[in-house]
């Protein structure tokens, strides 16, 4: 089994760290993982994306030409990556920022108002975590426990006090 995930949006939405958390959680479950950020000129314009692979087998190319799951946090990213999702795959959008959903009929679509939910929780930076919760609920690619451990491993210690709230956001995403 190989999960191929693209996460895309604006710089500052935690796109790259969301991918890193997933990859880390996969590694904790002894899966083979890779994480590849966009580092090209498109970053200067304010968009960011990353490619994550979580696999039972050795990871071949870390560069994805298609994906099984897509998370988008802005409209341009949906336009850019929608057609890279394999039939039967998953598209998760932040409905607060992407009012017009995907056109695709051959994939499972989850439109989650993550930014609004995060705002209601009083911390906008939780939006990416809410979307990851939906992704993990829809695919089971990693366990909730591994994700929580990954938060402790990846986040600097000065942010550890936020992790209980982040896990609450994660569960809200799972349940949405």
């Amino acid at each position, binding site marked *: 089994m190989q999960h191929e995930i693209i996460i895309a949006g604006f710089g500052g939405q935690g796109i790259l760290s969301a991918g*890193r958390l997933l*990859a*880390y959680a996969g*590694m904790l479950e002894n899966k*083979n*993982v*890779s*994480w*590849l*950020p966009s*580092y*090209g*000129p498109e970053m200067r314009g304010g968009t960011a994306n990353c490619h994550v692979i979580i696999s039972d087998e050795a*990871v*071949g*190319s*870390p*560069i994805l*030409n298609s994906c099984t799951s897509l998370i988008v946090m802005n409209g341009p990213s949906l336009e850019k990556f929608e057609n890279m999702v394999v039939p039967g795959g998953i598209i998760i959008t932040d409905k607060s920022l992407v009012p017009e959903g995907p056109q695709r009929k051959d994939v499972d679509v989850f439109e989650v108002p993550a930014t609004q939910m995060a705002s209601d929780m009083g911390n906008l930076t939780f939006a990416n975590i809410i979307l990851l919760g939906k992704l993990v609920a829809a695919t089971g690619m990693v366990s909730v426990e591994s994700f929580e451990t990954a938060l402790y491993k990846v986040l600097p210690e000065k942010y550890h006090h936020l992790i209980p709230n982040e896990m609450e956001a994660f569960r809200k995403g799972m349940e949405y």
Partner: protein
Amino acid sequence: MGEKLLMKGNEVIAEAAIRAGCRYYFGYPITPQTEIMHYIAKKFPSIGGTFIQAESEVAAINMVYGAAAAGARVMTSSSSPGISLKQEGLSYIAGAELPAVIVNIVRCGPGLGGILPSQGDYFQAVKGGGHGDYKMVVLAPSSIQELYELTVEAFNIADRYRIAVMIMGDGTLGQMMETVEFRDREEIEEADKSWAVTGTRMEREHNVITSIYIDPEVLEDLNNRLQAKYRIIEQREVRVETYNCDGADIIVSAFGTVARIVKNVIRMAEKEGIRVGLIRPITLWPFPTETFRKYAEVPAAFLSVELNAGQMVEDVRLAVNGKREVYFYGRTGGMIPTQKEILDKIREIYKNSR
């Protein structure tokens, strides 16, 4: 082995250098390799290392020359345009027979080019980008774990032969994260450095490190000695991965991250009944010529896939020596061939060869 870590390629290079005993680093920032400097600048003060952000790449490579002449394990890193600036220094390092490690996280050119992945510096690295008859050992890792192991090994090879060793990657390898497991301790080969210029304390004759030899007979002797050393390295230090080559219809040659794309393509081709092998040179110099010779008559044809306009393919052709057709597929400018593009090329070659 220790704990599994998820680390960025550039940071792994820096960590591996520290583990290999490197305590001197001189460099100048350039995307996409600057994280190497960041990591070293942060770690060196607590372990007694010397880090200098030099005023230019030219200054940095000459600081490398100085530290190497004093017997230190020393490294610099840059990306293509910066590596071009270092070529004069690399030639001097070769002439003075100094051990040093140079990292090139290649970006696309020519000129200032762009910051995306490329393998356009192959010729510069393996054919000698500076002047004179010299060689560097050139290592081309394709995973983060291999990046770690080869960086440690680069320092051992440099000391073993008093030669410059280049680690050549691209932005994909430098920027991506993958699992890495560090050994509890590294095997650092103790090299004889009695040649180093460390001060005589009035107890011995002066050591002299130089690359100027006005007397032609003396200079030819140096050249002969260098060439003899290069022949030994060609015999001992070739590293290569072969995959699926026995009975292959087509053998693809690719190095670095491109080899990983090719491995995916091999699985796709297998489903269509085309058996594709891979020869992945890990040392670009010394080139695994013997491996290509061994498999020269196995496939119907060879295909070299590269992120350039056709560079390593020339060494593949020299090795195959006319026994089989050698095709080329490459992209430039930071474009990366998709699996489908490579598969299409393989299908075309397969069809034409039957």
